[in-house]
């Protein structure tokens, strides 16, 4: 019941913020902040409550399940359920949601009610995606998160916002509709086999599909998730959307929207089409490696701070693809870690880019420099997160990328070797970013203020989390373990025996 309650909370909070926004110019902020805090506390207490049960190692990876008929004539039900992975991503959703509200506190002054309506509805859509266990419902939420995101970029974005908003929307919509065709095809194939018309995930899992058809169906799903993730040939919407979106928008895009792609692959592509996934795993891993290196090179050559950070996302998400298609426990653990740590480290970088833009009114790296002297606090934190993003031991990203490389090494040595080069590249672009922004000559301009108490709070929370994830990731790995175990059972051990 907590699941439907969470979505209702977000949607209701959004509506309330919208209505109140017509009369009051500050209240919507507080409404969305409290909405998210309530949801976050509820999730944390749920986690603490169930944590003991997870550690016992029960065979059933599902913690809670809610099912209600929705459109019975088509076998569509309102079916929500979560396992460890969903729970972690849900907590991440609410966590980043709170930060998104906080970091847009000063930045957004116009049409506040509608802004917070969009923000909360994006989060509602994302939460729905992480919970839905009915393929129709999943697609429903998948689409719901798009429209508010489109508005968020298109209305509150920076100069080139309309182009970026269109591009984002059309990329994701095309791929989403291809997935929808695949879902429908799966539905009819399942009905032909068994005579039962249903979109229920658990019933569709065992559907027997001819390999030729299965390949096309998998491609439908895969393209949708690859666009979101993004995997390299499908990434071109990402730098535009990230750089034009307001800070909270970039934070949610990088921290959450990209994660829905990875979640989709883990939840749907691998369990529904294990055989095909196994056949094409080397291709997917190759794309991942290309993404790692290509993203890093492009990140190095950017002059726009937000675009630079956006391309680092492409690079980091390459690790996710690499890890997912390595099909072993270590790599899966690494993927789960990477999803969380990337959200935090890249989110922090985007927030700082937003803060710089508030002060300097530019995103051009060439116009920055020497900021350390005026903003030592921000400089220190920026170095910390740049280090996190290049994978310094002791911070969360190191654990994630190390586990992924360790796992991937077992299944494909040469690609892993290539991927490792990405770590060197990431050091190069991160250091270049720090060098250009915080060191070097000081441009002649008015002094800037360092962090305010609100910004200190945001950064403190993020710093604590990334260090915690780097030093003691065990609770996260424990939470995701039952789910990872199940994934591993789909792919028997032949990979482990390879040299």
């Amino acid at each position, binding site marked *: 019941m907590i699941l439907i309650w969470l979505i209702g909370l977000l949607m209701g909070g959004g509506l309330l913020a919208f209505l109140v926004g*017509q009369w009051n110019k500050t209240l919507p902020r507080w409404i969305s902040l409290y909405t998210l805090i309530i949801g976050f506390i509820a999730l944390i207490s749920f986690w603490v409550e169930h944590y003991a049960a997870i550690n016992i190692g029960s065979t059933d990876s599902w913690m809670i399940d809610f099912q209600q008929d*929705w*459109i*019975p*004539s*088509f076998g569509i039900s309102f079916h929500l359920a979560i396992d460890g992975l969903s729970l972690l991503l849900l907590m991440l959703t609410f966590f980043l949601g709170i930060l998104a509200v906080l970091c847009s506190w000063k930045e957004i002054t116009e*049409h506040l009610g*509608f802004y917070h309506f969009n923000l909360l509805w994006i989060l509602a859509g994302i939460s729905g995606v992480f919970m839905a266990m009915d393929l*129709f419902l999943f*697609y*429903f939420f998948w*689409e*719901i998160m*798009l*429209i508010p995101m*489109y*508005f968020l970029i*298109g*209305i509150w974005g920076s100069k080139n916002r*309309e182009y970026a*908003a*269109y591009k984002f*929307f*059309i990329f994701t*919509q*095309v791929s989403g*509709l*291809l997935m*929808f*065709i695949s879902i*429908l*095809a799966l*539905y*009819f194939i399942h009905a032909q086999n068994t005579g039962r018309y249903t979109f229920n995930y658990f019933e569709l899992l065992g559907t027997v599909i001819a390999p030729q058809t299965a390949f096309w169906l998998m491609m439908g799903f895969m393209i949708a998730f690859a666009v979101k993730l993004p995997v390299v040939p499908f990434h071109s919407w990402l730098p535009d959307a990230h750089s034009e979106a307001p800070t909270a928008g970039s934070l949610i895009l990088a921290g959450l929207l990209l994660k829905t792609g990875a979640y989709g692959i883990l939840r749907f592509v691998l369990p529904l089409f294990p055989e095909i996934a196994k056949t094409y795993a080397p291709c997917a891993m190759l794309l991942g490696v290309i993404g790692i290196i290509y993203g890093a090179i492009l990140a190095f050559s950017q002059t726009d701070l937000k675009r630079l950070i956006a391309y680092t996302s492409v690079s980091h998400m390459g690790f996710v693809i690499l890890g997912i298609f390595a099909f072993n426990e270590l790599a899966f653990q690494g993927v789960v870690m990477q999803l969380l740590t990337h959200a935090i480290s890249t989110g922090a970088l985007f927030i700082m880019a937003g803060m710089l833009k508030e002060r300097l009114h530019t995103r051009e790296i060439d116009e920055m420099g020497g900021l350390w002297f005026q903003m030592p606090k921000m400089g220190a934190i920026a170095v910390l997160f740049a280090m996190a993003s290049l994978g310094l031991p002791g911070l969360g990203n190191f654990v994630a990328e190390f586990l992924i490389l360790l796992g991937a090494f077992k299944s494909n040595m040469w690609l892993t070797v290539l991927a490792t080069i990405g770590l060197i590249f990431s050091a190069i672009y991160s250091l270049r970013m720090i060098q250009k922004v915080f060191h070097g000559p000081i441009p002649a301009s008015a002094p800037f203020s360092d962090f305010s108490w609100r910004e200190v709070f945001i950064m403190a929370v993020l710093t604590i989390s990334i260090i915690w994830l780097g030093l003691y990731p065990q609770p996260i790995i424990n939470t995701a373990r039952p789910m990872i175990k199940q994934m591993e059972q789909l792919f028997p051990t032949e990979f482990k025996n390879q040299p």
Partner: protein
Amino acid sequence: MIANDLSALMPLLLLAGSAVLIMLLIAIKFNHRSIQISSLLLFVISFLSIFQLQKPLPYFIEPLFVIDDFSIFMIGLIIFSSLVVNIISYLYFEGKEESPKEYYVLLFLCTLGGCVLAVSNHFISLFLGLEVLTVGLYALIAYFRARHHNIEAGIKYLILAAFSSAFLLFGMALMYFQLGTMNFSAMTGKLGTISSLPPLFLTGFGLMLIGIGFKLAVVPFHMWTADVYQGAPTPVTSFIATVSKGGVFAVLIRFFIAIDGFRFHALMVVFVVIAIASMVIGNLLALQQKNVKRLLAYSSIAHLGYLLVAFIPGNAMSIPAVSFYLAVYFVTTLTAFGILTILSSKENDMENINNFKALFWDHPVLACIFSTALLSLAGIPLTAGFIGKFYILASGLQTGFWVLALVLILSSVYGLYYYLRIINTLFSGQQNPASQEKTVRPVFYLISSIVLSFLTLLILWIGIYPSGLMQLIEHFQIR
């Protein structure tokens, strides 16, 4: 027996009677407001009379009509749309240069034509219904006879509709020549044993398709659409987009089921080509439109293409999907045109896309309604359009029409661009402090807004909880 016939035809008789009654009221010089209100009442009465129809159905009135569940559903839809058109018309016509009163007479006649189409079971009643509808529309489209756009649209429609009627008649004649009957039910028997179509019948059907295609505005018979949509008064445009197309589609469905056309490969190929062309070309042409009425005209071409995707497979899901999508399309189109009507001023129609700038900040309620309607046309979840598209895709894919489904998906994706463009315009720009001026007719403005809000809630309700409408449609089926 004759009494039963009369009671079965009660909605149609009421509509015909209302036209006469309103004419009399005009003769004794009632003012616009009382004419409007009395016609509204008469529409409501006609609508309610549908619920009084006696069972058991289907009820045949040989040889012309058949009253069955499906025709009741279509009549209900048609009268409901006319009712909405009637309500939003007052604001639009009040204060315009022409006397608006005769407009209501014509509206009744056109509605009657649409309803006759929905119950016709015979070529003669088909043609009669079509002509009652079309002739009424000639006058409605050119209602503001001093404005050159209206005249242009009226003449265009007149010439093309007359031509298409000629094609239709010739086609009917050929089919009659081949089969020796004009009654749909009788045709079922005559064609029952044949597996390939006789050439004359095929020719006749082709000619008939030209006539029908013109009325439905599917590619390649779509040339008139944009001009007529733009030129006609906005409430009339919404009437053309809904009632006129819905009635014709209903008769097409009935005829096709009667001759079981789904088994003839040649016919289906023609339909597939038309459907693909309509979806692709309709959406393409809409992309660059600056005029919202023209844009909606092209989008309606594409929507008729979508409808054909559900219709072509001819499986158990087809007709419910078509009915569902028609209902959704009616509600959505009425809402969109309703907003255009409300926002139109005395001199100019609200049609240029630039006039919509910052509408969201000036009139948030109207802008929300308009966005919802556009999103529903684009088929975005939470709106009825999404469920409608899902239904259509399900119907197409069930019988394995992959190509149609893919074309639908791809064309609706680039079609999305122009809906988004309008929505973008609604949100762009700054609030205009001068725009808070008082509306001229506050009462009718309020009533129209309430009706449109109701339609919007309907769109959202169907989008979130479609089971209700699905069950209703399941009940009102051709059997």
